[in-house]
C-alpha cells in the first residue's frame, strides 16, 4: 500500500493550522498582541484535531473523547492552580508529556503501520519511515526522561547539585552512537528488538544527560528540552506526512534552540560546556579554603527606606532568591510607595535570572508591575552610573564585577549589571555565608557604598515598606 494522498481540503486544513501556529508565536512580539496570538494557537489546534477526526474512520469515539476529557481536565485544573513561581517545573513536566506522547505514537505506528499508511506492499514499513519513527521515538524518549530529571531538580524533589558519574562522556557518546547505529541498521532489518533497544537506550541517555547539570543551568536545559520536543513532533510529522506537525515541530525546535543560544550567550558559556555539565561543582570546592575575611557593612530596613526616599532613581535587580522568598508582591508595594514619593523606580532583568527564560518578567507581571517599567540588560545597564540606588534582591552572579575583571573567575566574560557604578547599593541576601551558583565571592559585598540587608527577601521588603510609611 502506498500513501494515499488525502483530499486537497484536508491538506489545506493542516496548512492553515500550521499558519495559525506561526501567528501564535508572532503575537508574542509584544504583550499587546500576545493574547490574540494565543487564540490563534487554540484555533490552529482545534482545526488539526477536528480534521484528523473527520477524515479517519473512528472506531472508538467514546474512548477518544474520554481520553481528551481526562487529559484536558487535568491540564486545565493544573494551569488554573499552579503558582507562578512553580512555572519552570510545570513547563518541564509538560515537556515530558510531549516526549512520552511522541514515544507512544511512534510505538503505535510501529505496531500498526497499516493504520498510519506507512506499510509497503510486502507489509513491511518503508525504510524512510523507519528512520523517521526511529528518530521520533529516540528524541521523544530523551525529551521524556530528560524532562523528568529537570522537573525533579526544579521542584526541589532532587538535589540541584550536579551528579558526576566517572567516564560519563564516554558512556554518553557511546550510547548516542549506539542509538544512531541501531536506527541505521533498522532500515535493513525491521526486527522489534532493534526498535525497543533504541527506545530503552534513548530513555537512558536522556537521564544521563541531565543529571550532571546543576540547578542554575536549568534555563538552558529547559530551553533545550523545549527544542527536542519540537524535533520529536517534526519527526512524527514526517512519518505521517502531516504539514501541521512538521511546521509546528520546526517552529518549536527553532524556538527552543534560539532560547538555549540566548541563555548560553548571557552566561558566556558554550552550549557544549553546559551540556557537558558539572558547572559550579569544582569552583565551590576551591573557593572554600582561600577565602579572606574582608570588612563589609550591614544595613537595616530603616537605612534602606531612608536612602531610597532621598533618591531620585532606584533600580531594582531581582533574581532567583526573590522567587524563592515569594517577595515579588511586597517588592512591588515597596516600589509603589517610593513612586508615590516621587522616586523613579525601574526593574533590571538579566536574561538568566531565575530558572527559565523570562521567569522574572512573569513574576513581576503577576505582582502587577507594569511591563514598561521592566528593562532588559542592554537597555538599562548604562543607567546604573546615574542611579542613586541599586537594590539587589535575590540576585548574585549577575551583578558580580569579577565577570568583567577577573580572567580566572568561572563567570569571566558573562555580561553583568554595572551595579558597582550606582551611588548606593543595597544587597538583600539571607546570609554572608552563601555564595552564588558559580560559587565565587562577590566584590560588591565589600564596596564602600554597599550595605548588606541580611534577611529573608520578603521579610526585608515588608520592613522597608513599614519604615517608608512612617
Amino acid at each position, binding site marked *: 500500500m502506498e500513501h494515499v494522498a488525502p483530499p486537497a481540503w484536508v491538506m489545506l486544513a493542516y496548512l492553515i493550522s500550521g499558519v495559525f501556529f506561526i501567528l501564535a508565536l508572532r503575537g*508574542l512580539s509584544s504583550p499587546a498582541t500576545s493574547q490574540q496570538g494565543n487564540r490563534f494557537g487554540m484555533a490552529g489546534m482545534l482545526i488539526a484535531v477536528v480534521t484528523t477526526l473527520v477524515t479517519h474512520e473512528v472506531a472508538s469515539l467514546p474512548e477518544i473523547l474520554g481520553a481528551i476529557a481526562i487529559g484536558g481536565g487535568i491540564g486545565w485544573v493544573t494551569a488554573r492552580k499552579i503558582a507562578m513561581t512553580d512555572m519552570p517545573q510545570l513547563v518541564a513536566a509538560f515537556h515530558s508529556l510531549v516526549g512520552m506522547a511522541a514515544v507512544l505514537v511512534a510505538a503505535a505506528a510501529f505496531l500498526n503501520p497499516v493504520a498510519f499508511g506507512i506499510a509497503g506492499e510486502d507489509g513491511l514499513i518503508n525504510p524512510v519511515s523507519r528512520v523517521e519513527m526511529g528518530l521520533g521515538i529516540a528524541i521523544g524518549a530523551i525529551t521524556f526522561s530528560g524532562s523528568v530529571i529537570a522537573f525533579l531538580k526544579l521542584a526541589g524533589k532532587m538535589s540541584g547539585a550536579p551528579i558526576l558519574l566517572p567516564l560519563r562522556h564516554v558512556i554518553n557518546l557511546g550510547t548516542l552512537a549506539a542509538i544512531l547505529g541501531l536506527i541505521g541498521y533498522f532500515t535493513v532489518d525491521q526486527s522489534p528488538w532493534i526498535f525497543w533497544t533504541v527506545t530503552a537506550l534513548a530513555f537512558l541517555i536522556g537521564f544521563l544527560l541531565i543529571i550532571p547539570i546543576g540547578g542554575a543551568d536549568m534555563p538552558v536545559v529547559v530551553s533545550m528540552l523545549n527544542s527536542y520536543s519540537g524535533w520529536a513532533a517534526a519527526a512524527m510529522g514526517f512519518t505521517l506526512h502531516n504539514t501541521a506537525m512538521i511546521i509546528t515541530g520546526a517552529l518549536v525546535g*527553532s524556538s527552543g534552540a534560539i532560547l538555549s543560544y540566548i541563555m548560553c550567550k548571557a552566561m558566556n558559556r558554550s552550549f557544549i560546556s553546559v551540556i557537558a555539565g558539572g558547572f559550579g561543582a569544582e569552583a565551590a570546592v576551591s573557593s572554600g579554603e582561600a577565602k579572606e575575611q574582608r570588612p563589609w557593612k550591614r544595613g537595616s530596613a530603616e537605612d534602606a527606606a531612608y536612602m531610597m526616599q532621598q533618591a531620585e532613581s532606584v533600580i531594582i535587580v531581582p533574581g532567583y532568591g526573590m522567587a524563592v522568598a515569594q517577595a515579588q508582591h511586597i517588592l512591588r508595594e515597596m516600589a509603589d510607595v517610593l513612586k508615590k514619593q516621587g522616586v523613579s523606580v525601574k526593574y533590571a532583568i538579566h536574561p538568566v535570572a531565575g530558572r527559565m527564560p523570562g521567569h522574572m518578567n512573569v513574576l513581576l507581571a503577576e505582582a502587577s508591575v507594569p511591563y514598561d517599567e521592566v528593562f532588559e540588560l542592554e537597555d538599562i545597564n548604562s543607567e546604573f552610573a546615574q542611579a542613586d540606588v541599586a537594590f539587589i534582591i535575590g540576585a548574585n552572579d549577575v551583578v558580580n564585577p569579577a565577570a568583567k575583571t577577573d580572567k580566572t573567575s568561572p563567570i569571566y566574560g558573562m555580561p553583568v549589571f554595572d551595579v558597582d557604578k550606582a551611588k548606593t547599593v543595597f544587597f538583600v541576601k539571607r546570609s554572608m555565608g552563601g555564595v552564588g551558583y558559580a560559587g565565587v565571592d562577590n566584590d560588591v559585598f565589600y564596596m564602600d557604598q554597599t550595605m548588606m540587608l541580611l534577611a529573608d527577601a520578603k521579610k526585608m521588603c515588608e520592613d522597608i515598606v513599614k519604615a517608608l510609611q512612617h
Partner: protein
Amino acid sequence: MDFISILSIFVMACFVGYYVVWSVTPALHTPLMAVTNAISSVIIVGALIAGAAGGSPTAKWLGLIAVALASVNIFGGFAVTARMLAMYKKKER
C-alpha cells in the same frame, strides 16, 4: 506527498521559526515556552490516528494514552499561557 516536498516545508518552516522567534520580546520568553509546549502537542494528530484505528488493540491503547497526555498539554499549555499573558499590563496613566 513525496519526501522532498515534505522536507521543503520543514526547511522553510525552520527559517520562519528562526525569524519569528527572534522577534519575540524577552519579557515574554516564559509564555513563549508555555505556548510552544501547547502547540507541539499537535502530535495528538498521530495519537488520534492510532487511537481511532482498528487492527492492533495494543496500538489503539497506546494511542489513547498518548491522546490523554497530549490533551493535558494542550489544555494546560494554552490555559497557563492565557493566564500569564493576562497579567502583563501597561502603566496606568
